[in-house]
């Protein structure tokens, strides 16, 4: 935990410094009339001071010989699962508008059902298709959410044909 505390507090000190400097640039104002940067300075200084105290205490407390070094991720397979899940989330955000909601959702579900703990293709495909249909019915038809149509839009079909 010691390493994590040192790294995180250093990051917070850097962030607090940036916020404090930006706060002064925005305008601290005065006590009678606080400016737009007033709370930024107060919060930035507080965050920096707290992080510095925690950093100091962590440095002062030498690591005990019996303290085990904790790993960030338990093993390679876990890391792979997290990496692939994160990649799927990023891909969803990137592809939603160009490809459209239905196709992106289908690919997203199919991908995750196969990578987190591989399900049979037939099962994964069925769950993915049913999910897409339910989402379109509930969100697009019933709740009137306007999802991007992408490749499946009527406009795209016209462009393909003509």
């Amino acid at each position, binding site marked *: 935990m010691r390493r994590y505390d040192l790294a*995180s507090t250093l990051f917070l000190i850097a962030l607090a410094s940036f916020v404090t400097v930006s706060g002064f640039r925005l305008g601290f104002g005065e006590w009678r009339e606080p400016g737009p940067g007033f709370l930024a300075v107060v919060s930035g200084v507080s965050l920096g001071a707290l992080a510095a105290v925690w950093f100091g205490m962590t440095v002062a407390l030498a690591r005990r010989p019996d303290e085990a070094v904790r790993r960030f991720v338990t093993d390679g397979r876990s890391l792979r699962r997290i990496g692939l899940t994160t990649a799927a989330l990023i891909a969803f955000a990137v592809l939603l508008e160009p490809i459209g909601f239905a196709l992106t959702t289908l690919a997203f579900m199919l991908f995750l059902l196969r990578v*987190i703990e591989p399900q049979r293709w037939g099962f994964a495909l069925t769950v993915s298709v049913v999910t897409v249909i339910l989402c379109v019915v509930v969100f697009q038809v019933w709740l009137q*959410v306007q999802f991007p149509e992408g490749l499946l839009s009527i406009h795209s079909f016209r462009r393909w044909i003509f």
Partner: protein
Amino acid sequence: METLNSLATGLWVAMQPVNLLVCFVGVFIGTLIGVLPGIGPLGAIALLLPSTLYVSPVSSLIMLCGIYYGAMYGGSTTSVLLNIPGEAASVVTCIDGYEMAKQGRAGPALGISAFGSFIGGSICVFLLAVLAPPLARFALRFGPPEYFSLMVLGLTILIYLANGPILKALMMAALGLILGIVGTDTISGRQRFTFGILELNDGIGIIPVVMGLFGISEVLLNVEKVLRRDVLQARIQGLLPTLQDWKDSIRPILRGTVLGFFLGILPGGGAVLASFASYAMEKKVSKHPERFGRGAIEGVAGPETANNAATAGAMIPLLTLGVPNNGVTALMLGALVIHGLQPGALLMKEQPALFWGTIASMYVGNVLLLVLNLPLIGLWVQVLRVPYPVLAPLILLFCLIGVYSVNNSVAEIWFMLLFGALGYLMKKFEYESPPLVLALILGPMFENALRQSLILFDGNPSVFFTRPLSALFLVVSALLMLSNAAPWIRGKKRLLAEAD
């Protein structure tokens, strides 16, 4: 008499078809969430926050309350059948509930949980209706300094509740305040920390933040270690407790009601403490304490009643003072803010339908919970058999759709993913999310109250200490911080001495 009239009006609001529907949806989803280990009520409310935009503020609050107490009940199902608590308040139910299930008495254990939750919840609704109005009237005396100090108290309460070191919780509160600054300054009109991103002009939305911190990060942590669970295979029968079960349970239910309600009001109390306190109390007053841990029905009835009663108690500070005393009520505060409402002293006066409708709906919700849960226990058992690798993509998809649907904006998805990554790292680095979220929600109000107070009182910060109510809130905050920090400082001193 006035209270009864108001409650009758509230009941009329709660019985409107749309409100009945959202109440049903709330308790159903709450129970479902409580049943599924890995998503707590906090995560559930975070996931469902966008859907509340489609209904009126009163319907939205009714649904969120339903999720809250539904989750409290649902958590008991996994405790009894799997020996895994669906959420923290049901941890203690595992002790005797699972023992009862092993002895073939899963039915009465689940049945008494449902009846206890219903009785406790119903009595507490009346206690809530009686206690809330005088407190709200009292809060009408507040000016900007009192509001500022009250928000300091609210933040202190969540910091006080933090499981980890107080300094880390304070850092997260400061970070939340900084995030709350982002956007256009309401007084000067200047852009702050928007970096030219158009979507940040109105500030960082609460929904992407909470869905990222509680939804996405939770799934990322869970996919790291794929959850496996063994559901009790025996058929569940005889849900209705016997006469002897009732004789053994009625006193624990009544004691759990009172204890849970008052512990729910207290800062730092809440459902978890209420359930543990009730179990300890029942064991202490029992003539046969040796039965506890071996399938005593009192060990299920008391805690399950207490955790449900605590949810009603927790609504008092939220509805009357606008101060949440736990993470779930902090999100409810967020929901009200999204709808442009200001929870607090004026809520009862300006929005009587919302105030009394919410209170009355809690009674309706408890009836629905009883009607819903006894026949549906078989369904919940089936739900428990859905493997997490199938559930995880569905939760993620729900987060993505939910956050996109708020403004039909992909930018919101990016914000959510950013906060999801932040939440994941925060959990790994042992920083807690609730103080950050509350500070983000309260941030703009906090800043306005602070700046207004300083402008009104000629830049004199002593105004926060010279006005009695404001001073009282600050003293209580200081005492809470000291009571939390003292054992921690003692521990650190000891470690430093050992290091020397």
